[in-house]
């Protein structure tokens, strides 16, 4: 049986390694290093970190309380609300972006934003909003599962100890769910870093303005600047690699946390 499984495993490893090698060996090392120092790469990297970081923070602020609410409350239409929140995870990001573009382009919404002096379309703010649309449902789903796994009576016990609802959330529910939520945060950030379709629709693809790493790959492939595109692609791959390593690193305390809850440290 083990030998039978070895073949598909080997094929999968070869495919992935082939793709990585295809990207890696296109450029000599000296050219890669020189390209890394260009202002366009530095800009794309900086903007990516900024937008993905902001989108992740907003997703946490929206998704964690929403996840707690959905895990604890039953109300009419809950299934519809949950399905609606989950929907962006199954939609093509490009389509989600088109929807957001139409929403922000709506005259009423546009006039309101103009009056408030908020400019979202074709700006980095638009990129953040697009990324929030894609990653907040992931955060909500992860948090909902994390809180649902905790016996709600711990929260009742905390209430009888004199803790207000906000204190119960911050001092009991959140710490007990922290490991799962933390892994959700890392996943959200990774997803935001690589977000392309929705960002393209809402923020557009303008060099040195809305040029995140995925947008830089797209722009430079389109204009034949293969070097910059490849270096951006490698930065994205490295991000994914770091995320996977971080997940494994979180995974150890996660297992340790579970052990503490069951057996003590």
């Amino acid at each position, binding site marked *: 049986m083990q030998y039978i499984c070895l073949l598909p495993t080997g094929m999968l490893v070869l495919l992935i390694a082939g793709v990585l090698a295809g990207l890696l060996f296109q450029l000599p090392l000296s050219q890669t290093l020189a390209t890394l120092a260009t202002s366009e790469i530095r800009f794309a990297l900086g903007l990516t970190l900024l937008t993905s970081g902001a989108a992740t923070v907003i997703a946490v602020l929206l998704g964690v309380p929403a996840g707690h609410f959905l895990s604890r409350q039953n109300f009419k239409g809950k299934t519809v609300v949950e399905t609606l929140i989950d929907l962006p995870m199954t939609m093509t990001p490009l389509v989600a972006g088109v929807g957001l573009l139409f929403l922000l382009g709506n005259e009423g919404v546009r006039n309101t934003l103009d009056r408030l002096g908020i400019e979202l379309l074709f700006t980095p703010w638009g990129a953040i909003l697009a990324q929030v649309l894609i990653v907040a449902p992931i955060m909500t789903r992860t948090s909902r599962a994390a809180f649902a796994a905790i*016996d709600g*009576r*711990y929260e*009742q*016990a*905390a*209430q*009888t*100890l*004199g*803790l*207000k*609802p906000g*204190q119960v959330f911050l*001092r*009991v529910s959140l*710490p*007990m769910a922290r490991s799962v939520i933390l892994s959700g945060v890392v996943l959200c950030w990774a997803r935001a870093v690589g977000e392309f379709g929705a960002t393209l629709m809402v923020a557009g693809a303008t060099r040195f303005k809305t040029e995140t790493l995925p947008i830089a790959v797209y722009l430079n492939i389109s204009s034949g600047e293969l070097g910059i595109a490849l270096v951006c692609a490698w930065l994205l791959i490295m991000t994914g690699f770091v995320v996977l390593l971080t997940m494994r690193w979180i995974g150890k305390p996660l297992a340790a*946390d579970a052990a*503490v*809850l*069951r*057996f*003590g*440290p």
Partner: protein
Amino acid sequence: MTTIRLEKVSTGVLKEIDLTIAEGELFVLLGPSGAGKSTLLQVIAGLLPCTGRIFFNGACIDRLSPHQRRVGYLFQDLLLFPHLTVRKNLQLAMAHLKPGRRAAQEKIRGLLDRFGILPLADRYPAQMSGGEKQRAALARAIATDPRILLLDEPFSSLDPQNAERLRPELKAHQRHFRITTLFVTHNREEARQLADRIGVLRAGRLTDYPNPVEIKKPEERAAVHF
């Protein structure tokens, strides 16, 4: 010290419960599973809605949220927070009292010492035995300076020897702190050992037995047999 009075308290399970528990009294509520014993505790703690009225020292507390009622609630499975040590469980329970840091430390030390678990202060609940967790949970409930102690079958998860040893301890602590206490159990012997007064809850209706010794009479024994 607090007198508790319930007037015509009803829920889906409970039927017009009238009950007064005097200051410092240990009232044991005896009844079979599903009779509504835990429901009554949850109603008093504000965790479940009800009709009727509840008074603490003559003041109606119906509109108070659970965190404002100052009840010490010992759940059947204790519910010590697993991510906190025993010391931090007690610290959290005292957070709303806003004591000074030193006063809080002294109070926690005193309580842990009284309950015989001072050496276990920095252990997590998962590292403790059933009896130790029982003591820690009771210490946590008392750390809140409760007006009433609500105990929901706290010995049901312990082996008979441990339960036998802990009952007089509980009674001694209750006398020491002079806390009005409502203790729920389905164990008649436990009720007789602990109670100042016993009530029997059957199908949501309460019968009050002013003197636990009365339960020894054959007709009373038949009444509380389930």
